[in-house]
């Protein structure tokens, strides 16, 4: 990976989330083994930050073209098919996150107006944990868009060269 000069907001969020998760988990281990004092209720925070991390990280992974997929067949497609497949793939990935977001927002709305459920360990309203998914998925859409643009660009230049 090239070290980029400017700090990017998505990178910053991903790094902060991962470090926070590791730090909380480590503090837990230390306090349990050294001081025989457990605040394992914070585990709840760690695993929910993990969900947020996955959303931000997926966005960066999309942008870097790093999502795992089978490219064997794709590589032998004619260029026009490849372009179509790239666009189709972007639309499906975006659609998937839109669906997740819609029902997540629905769940948040229900929680705030109706259920008002709180988390089992810390008593935090659960919608606070939920809200990271739709908010952070902005970076997923951005990543999908950037990668698709880059891939199409590359396919176009290839075509121009041939």
């Amino acid at each position: 990976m090239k070290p980029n000069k400017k700090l990017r907001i998505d990178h910053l969020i991903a790094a902060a989330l991962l470090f926070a998760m590791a730090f909380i988990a480590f503090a837990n281990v230390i306090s349990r083994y050294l001081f025989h004092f457990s605040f394992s209720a914070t585990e709840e925070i760690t695993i929910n930050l993990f969900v947020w991390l996955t959303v931000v990280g997926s966005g960066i992974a999309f942008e870097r073209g790093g999502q795992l997929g089978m490219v064997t067949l794709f590589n032998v497609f004619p260029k026009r098919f490849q372009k179509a497949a790239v666009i189709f793939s972007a639309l499906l990935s975006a659609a998937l996150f839109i669906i997740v977001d819609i029902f997540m927002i629905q769940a948040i709305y229900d929680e705030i107006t109706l259920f008002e459920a709180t988390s089992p360990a810390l008593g935090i309203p659960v919608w606070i944990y939920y809200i990271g998914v739709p908010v952070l998925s902005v970076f997923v859409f951005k990543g999908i868009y950037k990668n698709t643009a880059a891939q199409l660009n590359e396919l176009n230049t290839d075509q121009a060269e041939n």
Partner: protein
Amino acid sequence: MDILVLTLIFFILMLIGIPIGTSLGISAVITIFQFDLGIGMVGINFSSGIASFPLLAVPFFILAGVLMDKAGLAASIARFFELILGKATGGLAMVSVFTCMFWGAMSGSGPATTAAVGLILLAPMIKHGYDKNFAGALIANASDLSIIIPPSIAFIIYGSITNVSVGALFVAGIVPGILTGIGTALVAYLISKKRGYHGIHQRGNVKEILKALKDAFWAFISPIIILGGIYTGKFTPTEAAVVSVFYSLFVALFIYRSLTWRIFMDVLVDAAVTSSVIMFIVAFAGIFSWTASVTGFIDQAAECIIRISPNAIVMIILINLLLLVLGMFIDAISISYLVMPVLMPVLQAFSIDPLWYGVIFITALAIGQATPPVGVNLFTAANLIGGDVDGVAKQAIPFVLMDILILIILTLIPALCLYLPKIAGLY
């Protein structure tokens, strides 16, 4: 619409190069919608598929691996083995195998090991007259099999799907991991002897070796902390993972002094992305297998498989063959989610031990990943040597044959996997 049609949709999406996570998610969403299974739960299911304490070991082990890589620990491990083994026939080849093994004992992922060790050892091997495709194939294979050596992300995922203790799986992987390492080193030695790949220089003297040992000391301690903690029951795998994160951070900051804020930032981002690539698949694969299960597809598929043969060994051989083929095309994590839910009832019907089977399963998948024509690790290796995959793939064949031999031995002698977890009281 029949559930088979939906499975077909998944395979078509995957074949045209749609990311596997997206393919799984979209076909699951269509199924949920079609069978009216409660589409409103998709959001919550996505998040609950990720929010699990055992799975936290995934980002933590990845982070620890990236940290140690950036700290430069791989180079000092390689240096130590070079001073001891470098002079022997095929010396550098064997140095590569043992470095991969040790790296595998600190990092949990195959391609990451290929990249870390490959960057250090490929160039010297090629410089000393090794065929570059052979060198690439060797490192791809050795790193791939290193996923059997704990800690291993593949085991964490297997444990999370099957509810087998990840700690027990880690300990069960120790002996098979060492066996495959020795097997790979043996093949490397025999080929080197035949082709006349000589050793590099005089063996290091005691003073040099001690110095190298001192430099690599912090690296060698790491597996002892991770595995020792799990083996003695002090840590869960997730706790061991987070301890190894802070251990590597300590080593990088204070021993090797190779960490700046800027690098640390990149390390965190890289680890976050690598972990997310896995968790993206895990989240949607979870929804996918849930839909396959409530629609009764898994039971039907399992029944079909059980009817194929009444003999457990025949069954395992057939499944292994299937896994080897799948592993050539798809990554180990996706396969685990696609195959394990169906296999669990099958294992039960044949009273096959799921802990022992976990090692067999992951070994078979690992072999697939290092096998022509596709094999994800072969790609990483081909990239590093600037060659093409076909050339590397051809050289990988003898290693794959050895791996299959070891897989057969592990299948025939379950004690190789089960003895350690049993005496550790983990199983």
